[in-house]
């Protein structure tokens, strides 16, 4: 397929690039079609890790198939239109402290834009159950003082942030053994600062602050050069003007990998003759190597033969913590640009202006879909009015990544113990099957940057191995 056509098809999310067989039974899918083609590498999962790996492998000359369960590429994000903007329903923000994605942004010369909240003039927060409205100077100093206490161990233990276990020690493991909540409870800060920190930990882990590892929470500051402003710049300021799909299109335009959409891997069997991938469309695909780039939280749904190591099995079953909600909300009329930060138990614990339009567009985050049904307009209105009592909602949309069978969660933060007891083993290949993805990254785990990092590294390892096959 010519690059131009491919870009067009992927841009539309069209299945035109799939190789779903058209003959056969009533459902249009053959019962058993043994692929005649054998691939050097099959990459499973077409998020940013898989797309990166497929591009790099195919550019090296490896015969590569990118297998994706959904009808589109992009993994845990997709670009849609909301208001008059191209907006990403999942992963959105990135920064120039994220070397892998920023390099791609520069390489393809893709335009960026910034969240309106960078210029927020109205800050809203809660103090002992009371709603407060103030300025940046009334909000940030108390928050940043709390951050300083929270992040203190990062300076000692995470000064090589891309070598996450560099400082492995008894003390290091102790930080990983407790939750962010336990660490916050023990800090010498005020009660409102504890509320700020619990809320911050809960948006970062996208779940209750007692679910995520304290150590894993410390990474983002270290990865941002130990600078709090720069950390926010990396995690919540810059985004692609035309959405993440524009980067996917360019990366796939540089790839000669075959792509098969709408086809999920259900089983992987390894033998002396190679790897066989079984799909939900009753196909069997053979390859010398596999890069498994599906999200951590769905790996438990894939059968492996021979069985995976006990640590992998346990970790895949346990999964990462990201399980909250993200919602875009258009409210009627012009308003001051806001940045709102509630307590972690509120339906939305963060809410900020994303576009300062004539009808303002907000983005909100909450730790738990049980606390907010994003499809219920009344519930969304109630959640927004906790910060903006007079807001009138014109429309809203949130994609529930938790019920999507091919993500079963949002972004990755590890639960206590996973980094120090399972990370290395999770990254260790099982025979010819390598594991990649944002959830396996060394640095910006849980971000598109980490996905690209992990996809590129595993592709390079296999490129070297193919030289000796």
């Amino acid at each position, binding site marked *: 397929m010519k690059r131009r056509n491919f870009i067009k098809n992927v841009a*539309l*999310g*069209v*299945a*035109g690039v*799939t190789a*779903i067989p058209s003959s056969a039974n*009533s*459902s*249009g*899918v053959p019962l058993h079609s043994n692929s005649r083609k054998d691939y050097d590498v099959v990459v499973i999962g077409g998020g940013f890790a898989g797309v990166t790996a497929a591009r790099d492998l195919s550019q090296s000359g490896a015969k590569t198939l990118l297998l994706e*369960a*959904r*009808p*589109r590429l992009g993994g845990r994000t*997709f670009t*849609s*239109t*909301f208001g008059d903007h191209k907006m990403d*329903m999942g992963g959105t923000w990135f920064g120039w402290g994220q070397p892998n994605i920023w390099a791609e942004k520069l390489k393809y010369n893709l335009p960026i834009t910034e969240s309106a909240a960078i210029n927020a003039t109205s800050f809203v927060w809660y103090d002992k159950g009371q709603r407060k409205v103030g300025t940046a100077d009334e909000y940030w100093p108390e928050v940043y003082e709390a951050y300083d206490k929270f992040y203190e161990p990062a300076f000692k233990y995470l000064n090589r942030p891309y070598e996450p276990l560099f400082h492995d020690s008894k003390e290091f493991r102790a930080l990983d053994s407790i939750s962010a909540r336990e660490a916050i409870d023990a800090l010498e800060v005020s009660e409102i600062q504890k509320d700020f920190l619990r809320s911050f930990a809960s948006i970062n882990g996208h779940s209750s602050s007692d679910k995520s590892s304290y150590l894993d929470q410390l990474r983002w500051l270290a990865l941002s050069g130990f600078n709090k402003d720069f950390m926010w710049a990396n995690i919540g300021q810059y985004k692609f003007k035309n959405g993440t799909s524009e980067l996917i299109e360019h990366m796939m335009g540089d790839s000669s990998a075959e792509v098969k*959409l*709408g*086809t999920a891997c259900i089983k992987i069997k390894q033998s002396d003759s190679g790897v066989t991938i079984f799909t*939900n*469309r009753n196909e069997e695909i053979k390859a010398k190597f596999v890069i498994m780039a599906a999200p951590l939280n769905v790996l438990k749904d894939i059968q492996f033969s021979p069985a995976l190591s006990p640590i992998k099995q346990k970790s895949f079953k346990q999964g990462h913590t990201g399980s909250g909600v993200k919602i875009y909300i258009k409210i009627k009329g012009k308003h001051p640009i806001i940045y709102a930060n509630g307590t972690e138990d509120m339906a939305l614990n963060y809410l900020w202006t994303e576009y300062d339009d004539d009808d303002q567009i907000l983005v909100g985050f909450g730790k738990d*879909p049980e606390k907010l*049904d994003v*499809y*219920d*307009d009344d519930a969304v209105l109630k959640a927004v009015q906790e910060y903006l009592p007079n807001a009138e909602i*014109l*429309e*809203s*949309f949130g*994609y*529930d*990544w938790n*019920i*999507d*069978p*091919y*993500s079963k969660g949002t972004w990755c933060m590890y639960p206590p113990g996973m980094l120090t007891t399972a990370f290395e083993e999770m990254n260790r290949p099982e025979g010819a099957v390598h594991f990649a993805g944002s959830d396996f990254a060394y640095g910006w785990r849980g971000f598109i940057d980490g996905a690209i990092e992990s996809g590129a590294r595993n592709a390079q390892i296999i490129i070297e191995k193919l030289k000796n096959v």
Partner: protein
Amino acid sequence: MKSFKLLSAMCFLPFLVIASDDVCDQQASKKAFSKCAACHSVNEGGPTLLGPNLFDVVGRKSASVKGFPYSPALNEYNKIWTEQELHTFLEKPMKVVPGTMMAFGGLRKVSDRNAVICFLKKNSNK
């Protein structure tokens, strides 16, 4: 549409109240469809987004947009998208068609489902 009104009047159970054009508030139905619009285009000849184009979907056979890689589960569902069928599906899609790729929790409120079906009926050749 008179027959639908009559049917509505005859039904006592709320889930059987079927949308009629007369009660279809355009603004409300468009707002309700905003929950679907990120993934589905609805204009004639519109693009495949995350899911298939929904122009003229009411009365269409399930899983029948050519070229769209429906889940095996929806391929086997084999129903006609009548208004009643859409009501049932939209309330709890992932329970009605286990294995569907459509990650959507469902519209709990009858009024929301009515509004969406109204909107779909308006975007149709019928």
